[in-house]
């Protein structure tokens, strides 16, 4: 007899209270994408290496593919969908567009969320600091140079 233990997980996502009742083994990325319909966060490597699934959990960038939804119960989560202010893009989003910091776009939500956490913690990072922080966000399209440019541009704009 195969059982499925269910939990009701309550979170605040991008400032909005959300909840869903899900199997206990539901990962946070699946919870966001399928149970809450927020498909902006992507899943790629599934083992926490590539960074495509990066979301902010209580302000900190984490790998949502190796976090259980139940671990996030009661937490505040920021996803890519929460960065723009209505139609006004976050400086990072604007900078990624201007500098060509993406091509296929699949890693982009994770890149931008991780970069937001960086600039929140360190508003004027050096190139080395950016590279160290962003090392965990893989990109196969851009070769990273334009992502680095975008993050530096956003840091300048934010002041």
């Amino acid at each position, binding site marked *: 007899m*195969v059982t499925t233990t269910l939990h009701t997980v309550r979170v605040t996502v991008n400032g909005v209270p959300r909840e869903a009742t899900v199997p206990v*083994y539901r990962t946070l990325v699946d919870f966001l994408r399928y149970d809450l319909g927020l498909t902006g966060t992507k899943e790629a490597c599934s083992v*926490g290496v590539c960074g495509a699934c990066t979301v902010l959990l209580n302000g900190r960038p*984490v790998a949502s593919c190796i*976090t259980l939804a139940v671990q996030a119960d009661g937490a505040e989560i920021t996803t890519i969908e929460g960065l723009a202010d209505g139609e006004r893009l976050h400086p990072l989003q604007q900078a990624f567009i201007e500098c060509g910091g993406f091509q296929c776009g699949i890693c982009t939500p994770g890149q931008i969320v991780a970069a937001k956490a960086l600039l929140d913690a360190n508003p004027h990072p050096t190139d080395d600091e950016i590279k160290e*922080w962003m090392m965990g966000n893989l990109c196969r399209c851009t070769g990273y140079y334009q992502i680095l440019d975008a993050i530096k541009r956003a840091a300048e704009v934010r002041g």
Partner: protein
Amino acid sequence: MHDFQFHTPSSLEEALTLLEEYGEDARPMAGGTALVVLMKQSLVSAGHLVSLARVPGLDAIQAEDHELHIGALVRHRDVETSPLVRGFAPFLCDVYRQVATVRIRNMATVGGGLAHADPAQDPPPAYMVLDARVRLVSRAGERVVPVRELFTDYYETVIQPGELLTEVIVPRPAPTAMFAYLKFLPRTEDDYATVAVAAKVERDGAICRNVRVALAAAGPTPIRATAVEQALEGQPATPALVRDAAEQVADQVDPLDDFRGSAAYKRDMAVVFTRRALMRVLGLSS
């Protein structure tokens, strides 16, 4: 993933009771970064996960006169950035900074990492050269185990079912102590080490005292290179002595072939990096 019961005890007593009750079928869960990956790969199928997230008192860093206490649930990132740790043993901050990526460090915990016992991890050899100890608590009582005696095999420790690692205790380093940690990453910057060496020497003039050398990714557990230590202990530090002492590490390590290098290569690199770590600690150049 398979189904399981997810428990969220709100006291240490409750957590220990659950762990004792479910024995081998239970796993404590801290950050989950290692556990969830293993569960996804069906390498772990515990029927009960006991989350420690709501257990109070396990996530503090306390600096006393002679000892630093780091709670088991302290995140890697919090050790890395802690002013308390930096003031007490900045070496430890530098080592935690080199673990994986910032994303992993935000979730992975000190206790979870140690209990996971992957010999390629960075913190264990650092704790070994600091002569750190861990506190293991169960319903029956508690015991303090030196980190150098904690690991028994790949992914195995002396922690018994029903026991929880609650804190790491780090004695204050001597004022003359110098530390180094060298992590050899020939492939990519985001990787486990091919081999890594932590070293500490207390300088007494030219004489080396209380030498400690420990390696990661060099065997089934982190390795204390006692032969290297003995070769240097009480001796005046010279490049030639260091070179000879480092050679001793070849017989102390027992690495595996893996994607980061063959066993033979890792053995050779253990010698190279042991020498380099000691040279750095001693401020010598070859």
